[in-house]
């Protein structure tokens, strides 16, 4: 860092000195500074990262070469290495053999050699590259172009972050999912009607996997049904309220009402979902239960209705502001034409504007559905965690997201079908919401183009 700043300073100073000799510079002085700073940082950085990647494995190789001719297995060698490391850090609590002690000493020794040589090497490289860059500056080379090319490359790399994230998501899901389907046939997963991951919990890790043990354990139909069902309840709340308030705000409301009502409704979207979950579990659930008992119905305190209803409240603002936007962008000419024919305002809305805005509204509803499907905390806290195959809104059901949380909360053992099941569910969720989003965005985009 410090070297970077000093080299910037030197580069600029050199540039001024060239300027002082009345030679015309090919770039602004600070570009010479940047140029030198980049020369100073990049080669050193590359070497540093290479070093960081290769150092541990080389050290390991040297340490373990002592043991190589004693007929240990790979796993045992790894264990020895781990022991050596923890011993050298002074955190080892097992039996200390003289062998281990010598290798721990050797390890520390190697580490300090590595540390020192790293510092020396990197300093040398920095100095060498600075001298090289400095020479090029002195000959009054072009510096703006390389600096800008470098910046451009940095910008481009940053824009790859989004793609890397997507790739990361797919990779983190796909391997576990494939492993899962090696044990559980895809068919059983999609069409099985029993979901009891708890059954797979107790397994002796030393025994080989027995696929027959898991038959009838990972049938995802109850979860898919529950997800669909809760989303349906949520949309039953969100669509009428969201759509009507969107229409009212766009067509009827005075500027003053709009100015206050719109941000107030949008607050609903800003409230964290865990807060909704708490609200659903503490207030709505018991409230529904009381009403149900008063009417002689048996209502579970953790009902699908409570979770779905609260989720619907959460989605209202998504639908209302999107449909508001969509309706406002319907051309005024359509409205004027309808009024001229003697239609009232509501008739115009119902018969002219609504059909014209329909694709956009459908798009906004689909985005709402994708929200509902991906919502986690409300379901985890307000609806049950047991996957019942039921369409009674008064009983508890579970969703894909809730099951992922149930399985992965606490410690996870990678390689266990139960953990892999969560990743398989995540994959399903990712694919479903992805296709919903792509479809919805395309519909909205098409619609926008139509009126632009």
């Amino acid at each position, binding site marked *: 860092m410090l070297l970077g700043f000093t080299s910037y300073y030197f580069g600029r100073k050199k540039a001024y000195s060239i300027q002082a000799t009345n030679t015309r510079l090919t770039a602004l002085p600070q570009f010479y500074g940047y140029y030198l700073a980049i020369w100073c940082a990049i080669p050193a950085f590359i070497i540093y990262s290479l070093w960081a990647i290769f150092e541990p494995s080389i050290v390991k190789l040297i340490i373990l070469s002592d043991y190589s001719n004693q007929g240990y297995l790979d796993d045992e060698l790894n264990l020895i290495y781990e022991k050596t490391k923890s011993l050298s850090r002074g955190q080892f609590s097992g039996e200390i053999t003289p062998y281990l002690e010598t290798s721990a000493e050797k390890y520390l020794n190697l580490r300090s050699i590595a540390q020192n040589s790293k510092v020396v090497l990197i300093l040398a490289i920095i100095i060498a590259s600075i001298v090289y860059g400095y020479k090029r500056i002195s000959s009054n080379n072009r510096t*703006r172009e390389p600096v*800008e090319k470098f910046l*451009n490359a*940095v*910008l*481009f790399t*940053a*824009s790859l972050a*989004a*793609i890397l*994230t*997507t790739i990361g*998501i797919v*990779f*983190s*899901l796909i*391997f*576990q999912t494939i492993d899962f389907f090696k044990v559980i046939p895809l068919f059983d997963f999609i069409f099985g009607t029993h979901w009891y991951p708890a059954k797979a919990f107790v397994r002796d890790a030393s025994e080989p996997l027995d696929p027959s043990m898991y038959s009838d354990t990972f049938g995802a139909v109850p979860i898919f049904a529950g997800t669909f069902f809760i989303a349906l309840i949520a949309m039953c709340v969100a669509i009428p*309220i*969201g759509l*009507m308030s969107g229409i*009212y*705000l766009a067509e*009827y409301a005075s500027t003053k009402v709009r100015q206050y*009502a719109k941000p*107030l*409704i949008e*607050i*609903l979207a*800003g*409230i964290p*979902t*865990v*807060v909704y979950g*708490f609200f659903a579990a*503490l207030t709505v659930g018991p409230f529904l239960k009381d009403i149900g008992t008063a009417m002689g119905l048996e209502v579970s305190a953790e009902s699908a209705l409570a979770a779905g209803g609260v989720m619907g*409240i959460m989605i209202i*603002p998504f639908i*209302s502001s999107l449909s508001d936007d969509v309706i406002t962008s319907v051309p005024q000419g359509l409205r004027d034409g309808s009024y001229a024919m003697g239609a*009232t305002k*509501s*008739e115009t809305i*119902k018969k002219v504007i609504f059909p014209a805005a329909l694709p956009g509204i459908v798009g906004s509803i689909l985005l709402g559905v994708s929200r509902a499907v*991906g919502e986690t*905390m409300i379901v*985890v806290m307000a609806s049950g965690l047991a996957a019942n195959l039921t369409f009674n809104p008064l009983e508890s059901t579970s969703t894909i*997201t809730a099951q992922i*949380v149930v399985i*992965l909360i*606490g410690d996870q053992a990678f390689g266990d079908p139960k953990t892999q099941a*969560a*990743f398989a569910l*995540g994959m399903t*969720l*990712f694919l479903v*919401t*992805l296709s919903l*989003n*792509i479809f919805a*965005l395309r519909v909205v985009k098409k619609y926008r183009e139509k009126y632009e």
Partner: protein
Amino acid sequence: MNKNKEKLLNSRYRAEKRFQFYGKSAIFLALLFLTIFIFKIFSTGYTAFQKTWLIVPVTFDAETLYLDENPSKEDLEDADYFDLALQTMFDLDKSASEKQQNDLKRMVSYFFEREIKRELLNDPSLIGKTKDVYLTASDDLDQVFKGNYPRDLPEDQRRVTDYQLKIFDQLVEQGRVESKFNLSFFIYPDSREAELAGIASSFMGSIFSILVCLVIAFPVAVLAAIYLEEFAPKNRFTDFIEVNINNLAAVPSIVFGLLGLGILLAVFQLPRSTPLVGGITLSLMTLPTIIIACRASLKAVPPSIREAALAMGASKMQTTMHHTVPLSMPGTLSGTIIGLAQALGETAPLILIGMVAFVNTIPGSPLDPAASLPVQIYIWAESAERGFVEKVSACIMVLLGFLIIMNLFAQIIRHKFEKKWS
């Protein structure tokens, strides 16, 4: 004929009125939900900012403390306060049976001996004297005093016994019960005992994760937005990046949790339950939000600015870095703050990477295990003890307070500094 027409017209007008009424009631309903919601949270939560103390006379008897004469500071530090503390509680009712003595002990918090110890360490001259000491009441009595606990339940359905209530009422009569501002809620870490649980650990966890998120997401997002808006050639590949960003913005947050678990924890072996991992996961989640906001504000800078700079001989890079980007900063910053506010309220991905672990120390760096405010809400909401209900609401109030401040800040930046191009 005319009458029919009038009838039709009237019914059409009625339909119009009805439709307007639907619209109004939809908005009314939405706002009603919001009001109920906020009212409910505040009405259950405000009591958590008060804490009930029992004022109990403590006799600092050197013998019960097993201390010699003229004890040094270290002696006081190492002394065993438990017997003294027990004796203090038993003295409230000298005729108590063994079972009742146990009840007496449970009237104060689990760590009441520490409160007595602190008193003595502050003033070592107290030995041999008697002094009134403030002891934290147990969470059940705390709830009773605040009126949140129904006293008319049969005894076997309550966690407070009749005997405890009797002694408690005596203390109230003597003016030995006091309610004071609950500072410990803000400075204590999480605890299994509701009366001692505080938000300090989860608060620091939230701060650290948000900082990590900011440090990673902001530069990357701004650079990516600059590239896509100003430099990217229009081709298949940049289109692909754009579609990618739009889709990532709508991917459910729990999928990012799986990403954190599957890549950051399993492949890179980063430490579990830490704000570092949480922050990285959240930054991936907020990245598209910030990119979209930043692109929008870059787009809003009129082309005339760019053209003027280019006409003066500036390179494309100079134009962007010296003119376009600074002018777009207000929009970018407010977008970033809104993205961070979203990340601050996120729970599900943090649960998956293990930030639900019980943490009873205040984390000092992003590498220490921690919870975060929303996760703390989840943890407390799942625990059965009555005392935690008001804590959850109070924690929600703190969280909502932060979100409101962040959003206001974003608004102010936008309105104050954004240039209106006409």
